[in-house]
Structure formats: structure tokens, C-alpha cells
């Protein structure tokens, strides 16, 4: 029973959110014109599917988000490793990251466009600026907390610092790094959509702006639900990767109950 429930929890959650939405819509607390019910939203989605614009842009956005996530994860983990290897870099980059982290992408767009143009470089910049921090911060914290005995085991075996890093610290830190990657998955979707809104010509974010500027409210909300669906999809992928890479941990913590 619970097993079946857990297997379909993505669907359960989606239904839960949709039901909640519909309940608010039906309650009449806000005008239906600005808060349309689920049927109207589905209708909007159907129209966008019929014209092909939804699938086309969805693929673009998902592809970008996935690329962004991979980039942000790899870069974030690389920075975390670097921080762990060098106290100098650690202290210095900590300052830099504190300074960069709260910079809103919207605020640097003209400068960014000037330096990077309107193409793929701009997307990558915005995505990295926003989503690198989860893997980096969680990774750096996790690497610092690896049990002493495990590191000593590596040293005693005569492993080089690099080998200790990649064969002991990294696997030990993986579970917590994945917590960061999971956040990065959500954030990279946000970043892609925001980038598409600010500078884009296609993708879900662009469509979102276009639809709201042509006063197609149900479509706008349909796109919001698409974004949420993307969030679940990406989280699913992250969980899959987590199972492959840190299956031991999933089972260990799962088994203890």
C-alpha cells in the first residue's frame, strides 16, 4: 500500500497541487479571469500543444536546464574540491561566493548582454551565477566533515592527496552533495526560465512573457504548471543519479527504520 503510494508519489503530488488550485478557484476568493480553474488551464495547455509551441519550447527549456544542472554540479563540486584541497582558495572563495551569491541576474542583464551577447553564453552565465552555490556549499561542508578514520585509512594506504580526495572524501560526501544538487536542479530551472524571460527568444520563459503580454492568462498558468512538472521531472533524474551513485546511503538510511 505505502509502497504503491510512494511509487506514484509524483502523480500524487501533482494531483494534490491541482486539487488545491481548483479548490481555491472554485471558492471564488479571486476573480476567475485572473485565477482560472484547472479545466481552463488544461484547455490553454491543449491549445499550445496543438500549435506545437509548447512541446517545442519545453524541449528547449528542459535541455537547457539539464545542461545547466550538469554544468553547475560539475563546477560546484570542482570548486568544493578545490576549497577542500587548498585553505587559501577556501577562505578566498568563501568571500567571493558570499559576494556573488545574492546578485540578482535581472540586475546584471544589460552588462551581461554587452559582454556575452544574446546567445548561449548568456544562458550559461545566468544559470551558473544562480545554481552553482548548492553543490558548492553543500560539497564544501560535507568534505570538511568526512570522518577522520576514513581519511587516515587512505593516508595509511599511501594514497596521494588526490586519490584520497576522489576515492574517499568525495564518495563520503556524495550524499550531502546530492542535497545541494537537488536544490540546484530546482534553481537551474528557475535560472533558465528567468534567462529566457530576460533575454530569450524561445523556451518556456519566453513563452511565459509572450503569453502574459498577450493577455492569455490560462496559458500563463499552464506554463507555470509545466514548470512545476519540469521540477518533478528533474528531481526524478537527480534521484535516479543519486541511487546510482550513492545507493549505499539511500539503502542505509532507508533500512534503519
Amino acid at each position, binding site marked *: 500500500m505505502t509502497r504503491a503510494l510512494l511509487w506514484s508519489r509524483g502523480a500524487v503530488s501533482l494531483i494534490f497541487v491541482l486539487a488545491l488550485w481548483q479548490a481555491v478557484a472554485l471558492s471564488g476568493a479571486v476573480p476567475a479571469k485572473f485565477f482560472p480553474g484547472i479545466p481552463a488551464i488544461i484547455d490553454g495547455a491543449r491549445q499550445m500543444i496543438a500549435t506545437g509551441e509548447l512541446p517545442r519550447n519545453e524541449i528547449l527549456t528542459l535541455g537547457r536546464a539539464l545542461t545547466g544542472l550538469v554544468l553547475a554540479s560539475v563546477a560546484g563540486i570542482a570548486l568544493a574540491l578545490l576549497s577542500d584541497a587548498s585553505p587559501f582558495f577556501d577562505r578566498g572563495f568563501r568571500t567571493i561566493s558570499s559576494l556573488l551569491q545574492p546578485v540578482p541576474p535581472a540586475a546584471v542583464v544589460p552588462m551581461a548582454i554587452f559582454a556575452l551577447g544574446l546567445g548561449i553564453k548568456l544562458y550559461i552565465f545566468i544559470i551558473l551565477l544562480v545554481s552553482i552555490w548548492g553543490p558548492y556549499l553543500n560539497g564544501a561542508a560535507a568534505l570538511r566533515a568526512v570522518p577522520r578514520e576514513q581519511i587516515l585509512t587512505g593516508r*595509511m594506504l599511501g594514497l596521494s592527496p588526490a586519490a584520497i580526495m576522489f576515492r574517499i572524501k568525495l564518495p563520503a560526501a556524495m550524499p550531502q552533495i546530492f542535497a545541494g544538487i537537488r536544490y540546484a536542479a530546482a534553481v537551474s530551472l528557475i535560472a533558465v526560465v528567468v534567462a529566457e524571460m530576460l533575454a530569450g527568444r524561445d523556451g518556456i520563459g519566453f513563452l511565459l512573457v509572450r503569453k502574459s503580454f498577450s493577455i492569455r492568462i490560462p496559458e500563463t498558468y499552464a506554463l507555470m504548471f509545466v514548470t512545476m512538472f519540469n521540477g518533478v521531472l528533474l528531481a526524478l533524474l537527480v534521484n535516479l543519479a543519486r541511487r546510482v551513485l550513492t545507493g549505499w546511503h539511500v539503502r542505509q538510511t532507508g533500512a534503519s527504520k
Partner: protein
Amino acid sequence: MNDTTILEAVDLRKAYGHGLQRMPILDGIDFRVRKGDFVSVVGPSGCGKTTLLMALAGLSQPDTGEVRFRGQPVTQPPQGLAVVFQDYSRSLFPWKTARENVIFAMRDTAQKTRQERRDRADELLAAVGLKEFAQKYPWQLSGGMQQRVAIARGLASESDLLLLDEPLAAVDAQTRADMQDLILELAQRFDQTCLLVTHDVDEAVYMADKVIVLSRRPTSVATEIPVDLGKRRDQLATREQPGFLHARHEVMERIRSYRSQMAG
């Protein structure tokens, strides 16, 4: 320096904490271990045995004094060294199975191919009684089983110097006896020098060519007691030999003196 000396501790001192918190632990440790010898170390809980072992292994630096391995000062873990840590539950890698944990230690060994290493690991796991558990993760094993995996890992490296920190604390008497013989056998086969920290005086004497008794904190070497029982040991016969009983008595005597201090 004797030319068969392989490991040497010279006036090791170490304190933890700073200022008022400062607590001297090792207070001038001196001893030598000859190549191929089996040395047991006994001492009261918290006297600094683990601290000493870490310094010998080059895993931590003493405040003053020096460790020499094959005549060279030790600052890094030297080639040809293996340690079985006291905290078994933390020293195994939770993301590796028992077998993988053992294979991990085979770096400079004769087994080169994957299959050879696997076979050797399984052989060692069987020797510690964990044949059926090769595929289990550490957290699927009982405390004593984890400790035996740690021993198998220590033995797998076939190092010249093997440091064992209470490796049998969590196993039952029978298993313990078996493990003792296993360690002795392999030590002889690979001509290993061993240093064993233990709380079991019988074990200390049974295994060793020499027992080092440490004093209470601040710690120094209280006495070194040679054990003259030859290289072949037997769980029944050896323990009944006069040499055994004599050495055991001497170690006990020495240890007993802690008691009065303890109460204070």
C-alpha cells in the same frame, strides 16, 4: 642502533589542548622494535595508546621526539605500513561492500589483476569467518563482523609493519582465538613486524615476543617484558607454558599498580 631495528620511538611527547586546557599525554616514549618481532602494548584506558600508534604510523606528528622506520624519520605514513583502527565502525567505507573494503587495501601486493584481488579478498574474508558476507555493506554487519572486516583489510595489504589498535575488542572468545592465530600465521608468512594494542593481558602475552607496558597519563614506557615462547604458538599448549605464565604474571603485576592510583 641495532641493525635489525625496524621501528624506533625516540622521546615522543604529545599534548592536547592549549593554555590552561593543555594536557600532556605522551611524556617521553622510547622503545625499539626488531624486524619480524611481534610487540604487544598494554596500558590503562586513555593513556595514549591510540595517540602513540598514530604517531608511529606517521598519521599525526608528535610535539617533540621522533619516530624512525627503517632508520628514516617518519613524517608521512611510510611505504609498507598498515593500520587497523580502534574505531572500526567509522574506519570502514560505508559505500563499499566488505569485499571492496578489503580490496581497497591491496595496492602494493602480489595480486595484480581484478580477479586475483577478488579471490584474495574472499580468501581473507573466509579466514575471518565472513565468507557469506563479502557482498554486505558495513552497516549491514554486526560490530564484531565490522571489526573482522577491518582486520581482513589490514592483513590484505601484506605490509612490512602492521599496527593493530584493539582489533579484537568486539569479537567473542572463540572467534578471538581464531583471529589471534590467523594474525600470527600471516605475520609469519609475510615476515611482518606487528605492534598490537590490547587490553587483554593473556592476548598480549600469547601473541607477543615482547610486551610494552605503558604507565598512566602522562604516559611513558613503564616496562618492557620479553616473552620467550618461540615463534610457534598454540592456544592450549602455549598458555600452559611456564614462560607464558611468568610473563603474564609480570605484566599483571605492573598493571596492578594502576589500581590504587585509579581510585584516587
